[in-house]
């Protein structure tokens, strides 16, 4: 691992952020409507992906319990409550998992 590798990864990361934000024109109404429906599904999908392992299984118990705790708190639509729910779930998973 060298500084050049870090700089290359930084360039990939910044490039991925800048391409859509800087270069894209304003989308049409049809595309805008589709884009407006993406945020909640993409976050839910990212959460789900992080519960999976590279071997085609699920991660260890406390992490699943933490996700369940956050899911239970999610109808409140509060990030703080989801974090508290996740922490409570993680604690339960550590105790009983």
């Amino acid at each position, binding site marked *: 691992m060298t500084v050049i590798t870090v700089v290359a990864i930084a360039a990939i990361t910044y490039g991925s952020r800048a391409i859509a934000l800087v270069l894209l024109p304003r989308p049409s109404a049809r595309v805008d409507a589709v884009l407006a429906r993406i945020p909640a599904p993409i976050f839910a999908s990212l959460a789900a992906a992080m519960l999976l392992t590279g071997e*085609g299984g699920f991660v260890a118990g406390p992490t699943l319990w933490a996700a369940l705790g956050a899911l239970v708190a999610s109808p409140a639509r509060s990030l703080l409550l989801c974090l508290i729910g996740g922490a409570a779930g993680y604690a339960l998973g550590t105790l009983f998992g």
Partner: protein
Amino acid sequence: MLGVPLALASSVLIYSGATQFAMVAMLAAGAGVVPLLLTAAVLNLRHLVLGAVLRPRLDASPSRRALLAFFLVDETFGFAVATGERAPARDVAAVTERTVLVAGIMLYAAWLIGTLVGVVGGGLAAVERVAGAVFPVLFIGLAALAARGRSHAGRALVAAALTVALGLALPDLRLLAPIVASVAVALPGRAG
């Protein structure tokens, strides 16, 4: 593993928890440079989608959007979407830009301080275990913030289920599954 200077440099330059954690895990497994770069590219594909979602909500000039792009992380995106949707229509662009910038700077500062503490604390196993649980919880919270009504919540649940199905069936492609699933569930529906 990275050494203090490279660990700090990676947080200063990369500023991406998901990418940096993946990088450390891959280095621990003995991965080479090419797999590292490919994984970074795949993990960062989601930024294309996040940027495309935010683009219509910003009136800023290209140079200002280029600055904002550095601070486009999952959390600032979630906060920007949530605050923008609560703002009056005429203020959405200003509120979105301000949220990305202010939240981005605060999170960046916290990330750098956290890295410094981590480097000084050095390999705390308990912290490492908890870190694995933080991201799913954070993303569920951001999904909850971004969900407006039952339609969005329903699509989010379907996307999560689709991601799990794809990830279990094709484990090697699980990092791409969120992009495929979220775009697939967002497509059906009325234009506006």
